[in-house]
C-alpha cells in the first residue's frame, strides 16, 4: 500500500525516504503516467593537479539533484532539478506529464508502493572518510611528477588525481527502491618531451571503483617509467606511411577498438536510432570465429563495475559475441521497452541531469591462444599499435581512433617507432578481420562520452591481429 503521509518535506540522504518517494511516484501515476522513475543524487568530488614540482589546482565540488523520468506508451519525458523538496519533485513530475501531453488520469492501482529498500551502500558508508586526504594526494602526485624528471628533454610533467563519490537513491513505480554509494578514483600522468624540432607526448591513466585505498597502493615509479619510456620512444619517430595494412593492437587500452567499432553498435540506443548494422543479426556471424566479446559490470574494482545500474538493476555479465556469433545487445529500460531486448543492468548516466541510456561497462574481447610474438611474426609489413588514444564512431558506423605509440612491423619483427597514425574502419568490415587473439587479456579504465553523458568504463582485450585496416597518416 502507498503511504499517504510524509515525515519529511525534502529528500534526506542516508535516511529512509520511502514515504516521500511513494507520494511523488503516486502523484505521477495518478496523473496518467505508465511508469515513473526517480534518480536522486548527492555527489562529493575532488580533483588535484600537480605540474612540475608544485600543486597548481585543488578543486572540490558538490552537487545535489534529481532526474525524474516518466514513460507513457513508448515515449518518455525527463526533467532534472536541483530542488529536492517534495514540492520541487512534484513540480518536475507535473512538468514531465505536461511535456508528454498526458491528459487521461490513470487507475492508480498501477503502483502498489515501493518494495523494501535495497541498501547497497551499507558496506560503503565510510568510503568517503577512507579515501586519501588532499594532503596525501598532493604528496604522492608530487612524487610522481618528480619521478618523471629524468632528463632535460622532458619539458612538461603533470600528475592529476580525481575522486568522484556519488550517493544515489533510485525509486520507480515497479516497486524498485534502492540506495547505493559509488566511488571512482583515477590518476593520470602526462609528459611532453622536446628536442630541437622533435616533440612527443606520453600519458597513462589508472582508475578503480570501490577501493578507497587504491591510490595509496598505486606504483607511481612504475607508472612514471612507462610514461617516460613511451615518450622517449616516440620522440624521434617518423610519420607512419598511410595505407591499408595488417595491424596488431596491444592489450589493455587497445580494447578501445572493440568499444568504438562494435560495442556502441550493440547498445539498444543504436537500434532505436536505426544506426547499427547489427540490428537484425542476433545469432548470426558478425565477427571472426576467434572473437568472443563480453560486457559486464561485476569485476571487482574495475572502473566500469556497479552494484546496481542507474535504473536500480543489478548488472549482469553479458556475452555479446560468442565465437563470432552475435548473442546479445546491451539494454536499459527504454531499450527493452522500444526494442524488446531484455535489460542487462546497463542503464547508465553521468549524473542526475541525464536520462539513463544503454551504455557499456567493462567491455572486452576474451583471451585466445596465441602469444604476442606469434601475432607479430605472422605479419611481413604492418603496424604494431602499442598505445591508443581516443576514438569515436559516426552515424554510419564508421569508427576512427588515434595511435599514440606505434611501431613498424617488418618481416615479423618490431622495428622503428611510428607516429601520426589513425585507424579508420567500419565495424561490419573490421570485425571479421580480427583473425588472431592473444592469451594476455588485460583491462584499462577510460571515460566514454555518449547520449547520457560521460561514464566510467573499462576497455580491454588480449593482443589481437586485424588482417587489414586503413591507417591514416602521411
Amino acid at each position, binding site marked *: 500500500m502507498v503511504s499517504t503521509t510524509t515525515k519529511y518535506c525534502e529528500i534526506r540522504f542516508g535516511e529512509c525516504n520511502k514515504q516521500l518517494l511513494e507520494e511523488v511516484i503516486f502523484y505521477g501515476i495518478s496523473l496518467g503516467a505508465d511508469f515513473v522513475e526517480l534518480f536522486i543524487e548527492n555527489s562529493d568530488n575532488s580533483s588535484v593537479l600537480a605540474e612540475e614540482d608544485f600543486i597548481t589546482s585543488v578543486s572540490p565540488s558538490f552537487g545535489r539533484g534529481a532526474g525524474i523520468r516518466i514513460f507513457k506508451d513508448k515515449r518518455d519525458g525527463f526533467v532534472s532539478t536541483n530542488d529536492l523538496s517534495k514540492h520541487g519533485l512534484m513540480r518536475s513530475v507535473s512538468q514531465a506529464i505536461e511535456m508528454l501531453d498526458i491528459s487521461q488520469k490513470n487507475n492508480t492501482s498501477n503502483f502498489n508502493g515501493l518494495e523494501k529498500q535495497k541498501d547497497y551502500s551499507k558496506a560503503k558508508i565510510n568510503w568517503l572518510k577512507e579515501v586519501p586526504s588532499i594532503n596525501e594526494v598532493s604528496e604522492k602526485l608530487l612524487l610522481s611528477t618528480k619521478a618523471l624528471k629524468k632528463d632535460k628533454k622532458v619539458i612538461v610533467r603533470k600528475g592529476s588525481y580525481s575522486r568522484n563519490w556519488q550517493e544515489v537513491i533510485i525509486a520507480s513505480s515497479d516497486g524498485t527502491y534502492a540506495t547505493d554509494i559509488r566511488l571512482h578514483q583515477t590518476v593520470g600522468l602526462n609528459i611532453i618531451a622536446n628536442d630541437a624540432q622533435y616533440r612527443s607526448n606520453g600519458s597513462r591513466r589508472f582508475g578503480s571503483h570501490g577501493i578507497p585505498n587504491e591510490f595509496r597502493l598505486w606504483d607511481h615509479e612504475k607508472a612514471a617509467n612507462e610514461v617516460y619510456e613511451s615518450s622517449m620512444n616516440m620522440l624521434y619517430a617518423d610519420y607512419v606511411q598511410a595505407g591499408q595494412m595488417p595491424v596488431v593492437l596491444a592489450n589493455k587500452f587497445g580494447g578501445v577498438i572493440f568499444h568504438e567499432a562494435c560495442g556502441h553498435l550493440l547498445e539498444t540506443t543504436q537500434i532505436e*536510432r536505426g544506426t547499427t548494422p547489427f540490428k537484425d543479426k542476433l545469432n548470426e556471424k558478425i565477427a571472426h570465429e576467434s572473437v568472443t566479446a563480453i560486457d559486464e559490470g561485476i569485476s571487482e574494482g574495475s572502473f566500469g563495475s556497479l552494484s546496481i545500474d542507474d535504473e536500480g538493476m543489478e548488472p549482469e555479465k553479458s556475452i555479446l559475441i560468442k565465437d563470432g556469433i552475435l548473442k546479445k545487445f546491451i539494454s536499459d529500460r527504454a531499450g527493452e521497452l522500444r526494442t524488446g531486448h531484455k535489460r542487462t543492468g546497463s542503464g547508465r548516466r553521468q549524473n542526475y541531469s541525464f536520462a539513463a541510456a544503454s551504455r557499456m561497462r567493462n567491455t572486452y574481447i576474451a583471451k585466445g591462444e596465441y602469444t604476442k610474438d606469434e601475432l607479430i611474426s605472422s605479419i611481413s609489413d604492418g603496424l604494431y599499435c602499442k598505445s591508443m588514444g581516443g576514438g569515436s564512431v559516426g552515424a554510419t558506423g564508421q569508427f576512427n581512433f588515434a595511435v599514440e605509440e606505434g611501431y613498424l612491423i617488418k618481416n615479423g619483427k618490431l622495428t622503428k617507432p611510428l607516429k601520426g597514425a*589513425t585507424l579508420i574502419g567500419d565495424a561490419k568490415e573490421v570485425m571479421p578481420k580480427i583473425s588472431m587473439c592473444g592469451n594476455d587479456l588485460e583491462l584499462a579504465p577510460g571515460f566514454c562520452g555518449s547520449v547520457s553523458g560521460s561514464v566510467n568504463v573499462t576497455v580491454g582485450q588480449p593482443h589481437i591481429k586485424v588482417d587489414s585496416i586503413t591507417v*591514416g597518416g602521411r
Partner: protein
Amino acid sequence: MNATEITSKITEAANILNIRKWDYGASFSNDYSVQVDRGRAKQLKASQKQIITLRVWNKENLVGITTTSDLSETGIKKALEQASVASEFGNRNEITDFSPLAKDPINVKEVDKKNPLGIKKLLNILREAESKLIGSHEAIKSIPYNGLSESFYERIYANSDGAFRNHSKSQAALYLYARAEEKDKKPRSSGSVKLGYGVEDIDIESCIKEASNKTIAHLNYSSITTGKYLVCLSPEAFLTIINAFSSIFNARSIIDGTSLSNKNSIGDLISIPALNIYDDGLNDKNITSAPFDGEGTPTKKISIINKGKLENFLHSESTAKIFNTTPTGHAGLGSKVSVSPDWIVIERSNECSELNKLLDHENYEGEFVYIEELNAIHAGVRASQGSFSLPFDGWHYKDGEKCSIESATVAGDIKYLLKNIVNIENKEELTTSGISPHIWINKLSITGDE
C-alpha cells in the same frame, strides 16, 4: 533566487567565516529540448540548473575554490569552508587575483530576449522538420540525430571588492543529421545545425534543405587514392582546425609548455601574410556571445594574427600579469583558470598579392579535394605537437567532375598548413563557431581506401 540575493547570502556567510576576499561565478538555467523518431516523440527533456563556483583567498593571498549546486545557506557555507581548505594548497608560484577590469563597463548586445515556446510547440516544429527532411529524398530513411532546444539562462560574476555584473539571455538550437541508404551501398550521413536567440529566429527550412542536400550529395561515392592533394577547406573545416590549435595563441598553454608558441613569439610570422585572425566574442552574428568572462573581464575583439604575424595572446588575469599586460576577457573560473577563444573571425589581409585567386571552390576546374567537415577532433589532433590526422566528409574534384569521397583522412602539421595557404577566398561565411572564407592549402596528405 536572484543575483542580488545570492550575492547577499555569500557576503553574509563569508563574514561569519571571517573570509575577507572572495568572488564567485554563477549560472542559472532553464533548458527544454525534444527529439523525435519517425514522427514519434522520442525524448522530451527539461532541466532547471543552478551552479556556483566560489573562490576564496586566505591570509597568504592563496586562492581556493569550490563548485556547488546546493545554494541553501548550509550549502554555501560548506562551499566557502571547502574553498578555504583548498586555499591551503593554493599555487604559490602563480598568484591569482581579481581581474583589474572586473568593474569596467561591459558591452551588452541589444538582443530581444525570447519567451519559451514550450515543449509541445518544440515537438510539433521538430516533427514537421523531420517529416520534411525524410520526404525530401527516397534514400533518406531516418534522422537518427535530431533535436530542437531552447535555453534561458543568467550568468553572474561578483566579488568582495564590489564588482557585480549579470547577464541573461535566451538561445535556441536545431540540429538535423540524416542517414541515407541505397541498395548495395554504404549508408551515408550528413546534417546541419542552426542557432538563434529563440526558435522563431532559426531558419528551419534552410536547416532542412542543407541537411538534405548534403546527405543526398554524398550518395554516390568512390574511394580516393592515397597521396598529396591540393585541398580546399570549407569555412567550418578551417575554423575547426584553428580552434583545435588555439593553444598557439593561448597564454595559459604557453606558460604550461603545451603550446607551439613561447613568450617571445609575438611578432613571429606564423602564416602567410594574407591571413588575419581575430577573436570577436561580441560579433553581431555570434549567437553565443557573453559580455564578460569567468573573472568578470569584459569581452572584446582582439587581433590574434595580423598579416601572418602573431599579434596578441588570449589572457586570464594571472597570465596577463605574467606577460605584463591586461586580461583579454577569455578566462574561465577555476582553481587553475583556463583560457579559451570565444568566436574566431578569419579574413584575407590586404597583403594578398601572392595568393592564387583563380582557386575558387565554385569555379576551379583543376584537381582538388574539398573538405566539407572534419570529424573526431578529440582523437586526431595533437595540439602540443602541432600534428593532426582527421577523418573528413568531402569531395574529390577531377576533370571537371566531383565525387563524394567514401572514407578518408587528412593529415598534416599546423605550421605547414598555415605557411602553405595558397588562396583565401574573398567571400566570408557565417558558421556556428565563427566566420571564415574558404581556404586553399597546397599538398596535404590524404589517406583513402585505395
